[in-house]
């Protein structure tokens, strides 16, 4: 909701894919686990049928879809199997973007800056990339795998002050929060502490699982940074959240107050 309205505000037209389904959440790493590719394949093929590229708001979806897309384009054997199974034709013709990439490459961060009505006046925000946006670097080709800059630039465009901290690309523990809560808490705490030490007031992420894990870890910290989804920041800065409120959008979408 925040993203759609923000995009509208920026003149990007986002269409929700009809009859969408989950991308499968994780990219299968075993060479013979082709069946797990069926679901992202179907999503990609549907987008192709609709004649559009795909935009995701989630690092996880981006990771799965982009890697599947690359694999399908490169491996004719796997493509054939998937086409037969899903009964749709698709050979990697479409592109998969993260909304951040669209903002950077289509809108341009300088243009975005001009549209900001509520600049996040000098709040220090820690960009948190985690794993899925950046790795494997060869497949994702998203940003520098160890020294990424895109979120920092995004934050700067919104008027915030991005802080640099060493753990911005560390893993938060991912899905282990379901099976092994403690290990996740440990990993996510390390991230939060690192951001905290760098003086971050807020921490921004683009993955729901990261957000959840960080929230869990934050519970046991003193004055942890506030955790926000990047689209929330975007909507707030563009002044879209007021509109959302009027239309009875979820309270969760609304920005927390600056301390």
């Amino acid at each position, binding site marked *: 909701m925040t993203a759609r309205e923000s995009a509208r505000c920026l003149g990007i037209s986002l269409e929700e894919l009809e009859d969408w389904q989950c991308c499968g959440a994780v990219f299968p790493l075993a060479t013979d686990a082709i069946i797990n590719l069926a679901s992202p394949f179907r999503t990609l093929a549907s987008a192709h049928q609709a004649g559009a590229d795909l935009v995701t708001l989630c690092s996880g979806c981006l990771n799965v879809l982009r890697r599947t897309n690359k694999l399908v384009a490169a491996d004719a054997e796997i493509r054939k199997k998937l086409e037969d199974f899903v009964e749709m034709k698709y050979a990697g013709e479409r592109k998969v973007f993260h909304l951040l990439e669209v903002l950077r490459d289509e809108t341009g961060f300088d243009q975005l800056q001009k549209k900001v009505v509520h600049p996040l006046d000098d709040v220090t925000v820690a960009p948190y990339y985690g794993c899925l946006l950046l790795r494997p670097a060869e497949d994702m080709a998203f940003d*520098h*795998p160890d*020294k990424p800059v895109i979120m920092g630039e995004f934050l700067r465009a919104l008027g915030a002050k991005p802080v640099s901290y*060493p753990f911005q690309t560390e893993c938060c523990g991912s899905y282990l929060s379901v099976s092994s809560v403690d290990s996740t808490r440990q990993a996510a705490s390390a991230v939060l502490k*690192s951001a905290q*030490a760098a003086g971050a007031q807020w921490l921004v992420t683009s993955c729901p699982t990261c957000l959840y894990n960080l929230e869990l870890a934050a519970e046991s910290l003193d004055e942890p940074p506030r955790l926000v989804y990047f689209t929330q920041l975007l909507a707030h800065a563009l002044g879209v959240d007021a509109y959302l409120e009027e239309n009875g959008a979820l309270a969760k979408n609304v920005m927390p107050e600056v301390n």
Partner: protein
Amino acid sequence: MRRIGVFVCSCGLNIAGRVDVQKVTDAAAGIPGVVHSENYKYMCSEPGQNLIADAIRQKRLDGLVVAACSPAMHELTFRSAAKLAGLNPYMVQMANIREHCSWVHRDEEQATAKATDIVRAAVEKVRRDQPLEPTRIPLTKKALVIGGGIAGMQSALDIADAGYDVVLVEKDATIGGRMAQLSETFPTLDCASCILTPKMAEVARHPRIQLAMCSRVTQVAGYVGNFTVQITQAPTYVDWEKCIGCMDCQERCPSRLPSEFDRGLGKRKAIGVDFPQAVPNRPVIKADHCLYLQKGRCGICEKICPVEAVDFQQQEKVWEEEVGAIIVATGFDVLGAEAFAEYGYGQYPDVIDSLAYERLNSSSGPTEGVIRRPSDGEIPKEVVFIQCAGSRDPDKGKAYCSKICCMYTAKHATLYRHKVPDGQAYIFYMDIRAGGKGYEEFVQRAVEQDGALYLRGRVSRVYEEDGKIVVKGVDTLAGENIEIAADLVVLASAVTPRTGARELAQVLKVPADQDGFYNEAHPKLRPVETVTAGVYLAGAVAGPRDIPEAVANASGAAAKVAVLFSNDELENEPLIAAVDESKCSGCLWCVPVCPFDAIEEKELIERVGSKEVTRPVATVNAGLCQGCGACSVACRDGAMNLKGFTNEQILAEVEALCLMTGSPE
């Protein structure tokens, strides 16, 4: 009719283990024209060579086939033997029944059949061989040495001491190279300057060595014994003839810039020398930072120079030298560790590379030899050394081992303990490679006496936290991850060829490997030669080398040059390309395919009817041609032939093989 002798070698069991040598010998005896055929256990041995000589004399042989190993191995041996017995050496043909046959086959019967076929083909070739005589060309007894580091200096001194003139081209304003940047040297810990600077002085005052400073080799034409080399000298803006080296200019210059020589840890002036012991002790102006050259202001140096040596109008100078041999000693660079973001190089000032650490250690360095960390000048108490930073890393860095890092890191840790007795050095390593004389002992001393803690594993993350550099690595021996809050991190960055080495390789027509290191003519038997005759290698240009190796190399290359110069004329290998002008259509497609630029166009005057007409044909420069045969392949009309490997000979060989008479049914 040729009288051909066939000599089959058993090569111990190398050949005889798979090939029935007697059968091959018998079969050879049946080939028309073969008047003698025998085998022996080691044909290359003295008794073996005597067999050949005796047979040449007794049976009046005028063509030989030696069925043995690869010509690269022993062709020269048997040619010499034939020559001693009075036969033209080019009437000898090797039939390679070892590498091409016995070593690669399992079935004895088939291997024997194949060996027989190979011999048959060789006989057909020898039948068409012509005696060849080498041509003679004069040579210039003057050498060019490219690079004024320890290797280049050693080569220059050795050649000059042998009585020949040397031009030493150095791109910087001082000789000394990398070694001048070092503090102490392993495994003896003697100070680099103490052993280097006297040599630098010796080079500078040697009457037979001419220095070309701030210069590069920009073009090379000609061939062994007769190279014409173009040298381009960058302007120094100081007339070194007039300059007396008082360095008042350096003293008074207001413009400072980070010193490249000190790896950016210290500053230098826009006019001056890299270090006080520079040779020649003459200043240069760094144009990019000179206020006068950039903005037209200042000019203090010009005003105060007592001998009016400063010359802002100085231009680039280009000249040519005639030399007979070239030694390349361009040395090494280190990999820009920026590629490894996880090590924080370039991000944190206290993560430095090993050359910078050498400068910290050096008494003439930015800290006068006191180990201080760059960020705040504090003396670091916990120092982490990371070996293989880019080496042995085919994924992001270099696949090869840089060879010198194990040793200099041990040295660094030792020196550190000597200077900071209460400090601790940690070394992340993969394998310790300490194969030189006294090397292993040196490493053990670092461990036992100087308390260096070796951790077997790599580092995955380096980041700053609370003013410390946190190093996260692993000790695979303990099976534990290691975290060290360090004050200073030193990366043993991979050794790479000098920037520009590839371009120079093209100028010299010397092949380089995928990493840019120059290829030796033979990695074992001709380690200081290249495939381009007259061009030799010294030091790290051919791969990572330590000082003793580089010096040994340099003397080896110098010896090769001295041997070359001991001749008054050069004998030219006669196995070169030749043009049949009557067939040549003059298309000159051979010209661009020649890797040695050995083919030129010439105007042929011919009579057509009653008139004289001219037409273009190709002609081969015997000095440049290396006999690779590329031209004869490109030549459609068959006008280009490689002597000793003519089209006719090769076709005869193919035809002999097609008969396959030796093959079992």
